[in-house]
């Protein structure tokens, strides 16, 4: 077991300067004054993690809060599949959307918490969605109006399959456009965690859109009524 790093508190400062990030983090006071090398390296680790969290911009925050609302609506939509006669492919897709987007909501909430930002809370009651703490979160690109949600809630079986895919494709494409908008904004995506999340959302949802387009294409013509 090799832990031979010769680290001293002064080097914490030196290395942070070397990081040359835009904002100098106020971290040295919290670094433990231990002679243990590992403890000092761990302090440097925490300092750098903290400093990386200072790179965000308002555009990143807007993206995260908006995406929390956007993802939350996907949970509402996908939550209908088991009770609305969705076919088994859509059931599988819905289960994965719920798992993936729930995790991403938690991830984005943590991202905001780590940066002392307002953390939107999601409340889902049937088909009614409320996002506390983010007014704009209900008007993001691709999101369904409440009457579209109700239309989906009324549909069953073949009609549900078609409407679900149509609306979820629209919904996902909205998320992709949110990523593009973010990346086209000066100063955005400099936070590596934000960049990674946005990039992952982009590729995952583009991949899912392609899969859903093939599923939609394969549905019987004429609304798929049975």
């Amino acid at each position, binding site marked *: 077991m090799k832990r031979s790093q010769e680290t001293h508190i002064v080097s914490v400062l030196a290395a942070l300067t070397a990081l040359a990030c835009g904002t100098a983090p106020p971290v040295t006071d919290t670094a433990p004054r231990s002679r243990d090398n590992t403890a000092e390296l761990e302090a440097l680790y925490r300092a750098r993690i903290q400093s990386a969290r200072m790179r965000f911009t308002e555009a990143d925050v807007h993206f995260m809060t908006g995406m929390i609302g956007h993802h939350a609506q996907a949970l509402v939509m996908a939550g209908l599949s088991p009770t609305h006669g969705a076919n088994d492919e859509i059931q599988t897709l819905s289960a994965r959307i719920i798992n993936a987007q729930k995790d991403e909501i938690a991830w984005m909430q943590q991202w905001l918490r780590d940066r002392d930002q307002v953390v939107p809370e999601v409340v889902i009651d049937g088909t009614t969605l409320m996002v506390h703490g983010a007014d704009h979160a209900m008007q993001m690109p691709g999101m369904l109006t409440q009457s579209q949600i109700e239309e989906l809630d009324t549909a069953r079986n073949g009609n549900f399959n078609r409407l679900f895919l149509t609306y979820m494709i629209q919904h996902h494409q909205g998320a992709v456009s949110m990523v593009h908008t973010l990346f086209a904004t000066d100063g955005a*995506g400099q936070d590596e965690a934000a960049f990674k999340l946005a990039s*992952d959302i982009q590729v995952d949802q583009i991949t899912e859109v392609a899969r859903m387009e093939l*599923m939609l294409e394969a549905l019987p013509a004429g609304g798929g009524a049975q």
Partner: protein
Amino acid sequence: MFLNTDTVINRSWLWPLTVGLAMSACAGSANTAEMTAPIGSMAMAVPPTPDPRVGLKAGLFDAEEAIWNLRMVSQTPPSQEFVGVTNSDLAFSGHYAIQGNYNGVQVWDISNPSEPTLAVGYVCPASQSDVSVYENLMFVSGEGLTGRLDCSGEGVQEAVSHHRLRGIRIFDISDIRNPEYIANVQTCRGSHTHTVLKDPNDDDNVYIYVSGSSAVRPAEELSGCSGAPLAEDPNSALFRIEVIRVPLANPKAAAIVSSPRIFQDLVAPPVHGLAPADIAVIETAKARGAFVADINGQARVLPDGFVSVQLDSVVKARGGSGAPNAADSSAFRDYLPVLIAQLTGGGGNNDGDGPPPGPTQCHDITVYPAIGLAGGACGGYGLLLDISDPANPVRIGAVSDSNFAYWHSATFNNDGDKIMFTDEWGGGGGPKCRVSDPKEWGANAIFTLNNRQMRFQSYYKLPAAQTPQENCVAHNGSLIPIPGRDIMVQGWYQGGISIIDWTDASNPIEIAYHDRGPVDSTKMQSGGSWSVYWYNGVIVNSEIARGLDIFELMPSASMSQNEIDAAKTITFDYMNSQGQPKFVWPTTFTLAKAYVDQLERSGGLPATRIASVRQDLGNAERASGNTRRETLTKLAGELNNEARSSRDAAKVRTLTSTVRELANTR
């Protein structure tokens, strides 16, 4: 449930038919993970229970650890300029391990694996800093928006900037302790990963396949870049990969030579066939007299509910009533193909605007030049590419899977008759190994590869449940050169590393592992194994937060010391895992003894015979000249005769030829 898109499309048609049909089709695959059919009588090491990986104490440098059939040789934390920044992929050159990091690269001298020393930490920030080497050149991927041409860490604030680097950085590492940054190749989507291809027929160049998965850059930043759909712009940077040619005599002249649209017309991949577990279900169903229909080329057991409704209508059609008789069943059986054709045929919703252009990109491509093929993990597909013309890879096969979210990487077995794909569900930032996460999601999928056709066999997912504080999903790994077996070591982020035996493609099993507790017990803090590769006798792990780990295999019932020693006879001057090298084992006594150990494990020779073969090999090894040759020649002759009656005849023949080659070695 493993499906190709063909099946997805057409099964939707069958929805009105019944839910049950689809569910019965699932049953076999859903049980795949539970299939525990023993491989012959092989005695493998029994994993400790309860699994010690569950419930490990959290910590950054002091997390609790669990280890099985491995020995940790060293764990080296990141150097000061890199700690707290993500460690990424690994490449190897000589006795150096080159570790990518979002802050640059760290070059570790691992000539003494128990005490790696930092040869150089080269600061040049960019995500993901995927690294590769070839001779005196090192290639590094840049994708993130913060990467700069001048390697400074200040980021790039402007959405359009000529300071930004997204693409491939090229370094001259003739003096590896002083890398010289000599060139860039900028690409429209940057480089999330890349793959260096050394074509066996081209000694003047190497090729780099660039996979970029983030957004397309504005044309104002890099001329010619367009993120428009193909229908709007035939020069769109989407729906293609980039191929860079690097002239070895003048690497500064490296440039994009082609942008192959390897996804074109990728609508529905060919039917991959049923997994062995599905076939078993169908055979059992047939045996009990169930109705089995061919639906779009795949056998499906018809659910009883559907069948009884249909049989009733047959009874009614002949004017009868009550239970159907044998003649009714027979009539229904004859009518079944027509009925299925009616239910699945025609119609559709094709809007006639041509086939979709396929995925927009690959995540990663693994080339295996020795067999002229590459495996591409691309959006919703696993692709097989012919790379005999390195600048113009051609797609020759594709598979899809309703359980796979995002195809991430590929690994061939050494013989090139199997390929494993991974699904990086959640992008590596999510905790996808919890008890509640399905075993088929975020897993590996194993295919056999015969006549360039991929056929699904099974899934493998890390068997130890992880906490919600641990990002975990299938990630990077490499083969371990145990002769005659397909052994792979693989990183699962904070799920740790897992070594599996996938010699039996339908029944992969875990034979060794290492895991740490979460980085943080209170919340998800990124960490774990980004990639773990075998290189020249040791297993090197790039730990995102903790640094560089080096392991050695320990002998167990699953792997003997002779097999480990035989693996150590394979050495390379350099290695990039995505440029898969072929293992050719030198003829040694160790190799012969490893095969004997395998025959003992498989019961391919009786125990008494195993003992006498070992005796003969030992005598021959101690002898020399004619005595050695005669002993070995006699042994080879005997083994040759015994092969026929062995339950593991192929292995006895492999041993025979090894012994014969030993006899002829001076």
